[in-house]
């Protein structure tokens, strides 16, 4: 491991250690924060008992759905929009300001349209992640070197072949950047919706635990979400880095 990596590990250890000490001696009260070791024990207990497995599966499953839809729709839309200059120019201001829009305000409307099941939450997750994927896909498509497209034409490749064999592989690292955003946004969409109005899922359970001062449930759930999103992100980042390395860009 690199020197910087070791220092990072050391810093995390110091931080956790300090937290542990402060909670033990009562500087931070147990109602606000738990000692790290207790959080881990609670996490283990919760997983072992399987009490919340259904909620976990529901949230992660829905977020997964939202992610897949956001990325596929996003990439396809990106490919289409890239070819239509007027459309892209018109949508540009929308893309630039999209993330300040309070998307959760559409939640009640979505419930009315799609019913009380999982669909509204997935829809919100998609709504949030979709634009990030489109923007990054467009960016990647912009950067495909012209000379590669000329090579494709010289070799008699049709539109679909060019897209699959040349354009997408070339734009892949940038598309992965969009995918990383989609991971976070799918989770935000689903969990946020569960906070606001739901009868199940991790967001609901966290909210319920918070209202009942049940730190033993709340913290493990939060840790699980943090760990999941950071790990998935790291996996995608590794992939992205290896793609860039192969091209000598890293």
């Amino acid at each position, binding site marked *: 491991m690199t020197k910087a990596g070791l*220092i990072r590990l050391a810093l995390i250890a110091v931080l956790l250690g300090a937290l542990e000490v402060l909670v033990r001696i009562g500087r931070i009260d147990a109602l606000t924060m738990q000692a790290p070791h207790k959080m881990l024990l609670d996490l283990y207990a919760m997983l072992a008992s399987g009490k919340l497995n259904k909620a976990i599966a529901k949230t992660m499953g829905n977020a997964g759905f939202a992610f897949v839809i956001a990325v596929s729709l996003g990439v396809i839309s990106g490919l289409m929009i890239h070819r239509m200059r007027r459309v892209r120019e*018109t949508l540009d201001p*929308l893309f*630039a300001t999209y*993330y300040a829009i309070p998307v959760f*305000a559409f939640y009640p*409307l979505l419930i009315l349209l799609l019913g009380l099941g999982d669909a509204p939450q997935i829809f919100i997750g998609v709504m949030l992640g979709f634009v990030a994927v489109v923007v990054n896909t467009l960016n990647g498509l912009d950067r495909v070197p012209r000379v590669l497209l000329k090579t494709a034409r010289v070799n008699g490749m049709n539109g679909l072949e060019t897209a699959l064999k040349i354009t997408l592989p070339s734009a892949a690292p940038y598309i992965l950047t969009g995918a990383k955003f989609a991971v976070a946004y799918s989770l935000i969409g689903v969990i946020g919706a569960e*906070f606001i109005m739901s009868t199940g899922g991790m967001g609901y359970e966290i909210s319920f635990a918070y209202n009942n001062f049940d730190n033993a449930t709340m913290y493990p759930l939060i840790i699980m979400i943090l760990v999941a999103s950071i790990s998935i992100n790291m996996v995608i980042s590794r992939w992205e880095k290896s793609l860039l390395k192969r091209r000598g860009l890293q």
Partner: protein
Amino acid sequence: MSPSTRRLIVNMGWLTLVILALWQGLYALIGDIALRSPLATLQFTAKFVTTPQFATHLAETSKAFVLALGIAVGSGLAIGFVLGLKRFASDIFEPFLIAIYSVPKITLYPILLLVFGLGLSAKVAFGAIHGIVPIALFTLNAVRNVKPVLLKTARVMGLSSTTTIRTVIFPSALPEIFAGLRIGFSLTLIGTLLGEMFASQRGLGFLLMNAIGLHNVDVIVMLTFLLTGFAGIAGIVLLLINRRITAQA
């Protein structure tokens, strides 16, 4: 007005028309049970914004947003600069920033609520944590990517470190820093609103949450319209400023 600015405004016009058309169409499909027509929304908005009630909530949200934005911009720039200038520090801390950026911060809300309690500080905290990381990351990269030849030139001219930062590094990095500020602006806004939805009895976010609970469609649609409109206009203005700055780079 430059041709590209004119084009942007024309496109905004088209986009607005399309959105209005879709809105009207959606309303025709769904009806008053979950939506209001654009016209009805405008009328309701005109009435509501003149009430003192609205003014109080607006003031509350504005206060929280400005504070959150100040903290996000101030800290973000400072962190970004320090890490951008010191290679070793950025090697250590950049992965932390990236990890924090990738986490759905909404998960941290309960913790923030426990730490700050309900009220203004929680809202400001929500807003700030959303904006600080992208600003820091963009600034970090912008400073790091200043062309080495410019730094060499500054050294050859015998400029002090502070002068170099002020007259060479900052102007050179400004376009990219500003792009980060734009993102920070949007995210801090949404963070503050979400904070108000969950942590407050006052402010526009609270009004929205309340309206959702009471199924007060008038208020829901009006607030969505107002907030989207504000975000849109602010976003365009920032975009134009960003273009202006980049044109000189």
